[in-house]
């Protein structure tokens, strides 16, 4: 199950949706809004998604994890809208018979989410300026995009 959410992510409900008597391992990942990025002080974030395609792509990533790692279940929710420091931007949960595949699948899902999901992040800084992450227009834009693996 992949979802986008405009409101706080409720982990307990999501975790409950994965409960499975055949699973011996549950691995989860939370991405948090951090107060600094590229040594700039971040005040708040805004995530904007191309919903139709993000939902398709998110579901596809979860299916891939299922096929590659043979996990029992996987779920992921990504926030949209305005987020404050410390809020959960993305949550992933994976269940599996054993821990190794659960860890690997969880890692796979967050890595693919970061490079493939059509979702954008605008940071507002404490000095009042703001900008879309990875879309900066200065001369180093190309290097930055390569560093984070965006083509």
């Amino acid at each position: 199950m992949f979802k986008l959410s405009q409101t706080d992510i409720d982990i307990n409900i999501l975790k409950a949706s994965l409960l499975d008597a055949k699973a011996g391992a549950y691995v989860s990942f939370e991405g948090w809004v951090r107060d600094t990025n590229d040594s700039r002080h971040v005040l708040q974030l805004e995530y904007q998604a191309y919903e139709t395609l993000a939902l398709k792509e998110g579901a596809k990533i979860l299916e891939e994890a299922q096929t590659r790692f043979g996990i029992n279940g996987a779920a992921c929710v990504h926030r949209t809208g305005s987020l404050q420091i410390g809020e959960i931007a993305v949550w992933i949960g994976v269940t599996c018979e054993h821990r190794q595949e659960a860890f690997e699948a969880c890692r796979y899902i967050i890595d693919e989410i970061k490079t493939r999901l059509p979702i954008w992040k605008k940071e507002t800084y404490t000095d009042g300026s703001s900008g879309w992450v990875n879309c900066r227009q200065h001369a180093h834009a190309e290097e930055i995009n390569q560093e984070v693996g965006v083509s």
Partner: protein
Amino acid sequence: MGLSSGMPFTAEKQIHVDYFAILKEQRGKDSEVIQTSAATAQELYSELKERFGFSLAQNHLSVAVNDEFAKWDTPLKENDRVVFIPPVAGG
């Protein structure tokens, strides 16, 4: 009519374009219908970049046609929905 012989037929068509993130800000709106003779997604981006002054070069973008990721040389048809996808930043 009026096309000189040997010229490829490039009919005007209507394309729905949705904008997100930096493109939405630079265009000042989130969607519009464009009347264009662009044959491919690539040609359409060149045209719009020139017309609206988008800062991102095409090689920094991906493109979706009718809500699926598409190749830049995808031929455009009447009423296609095109979205240019700036570098993503999820997670």
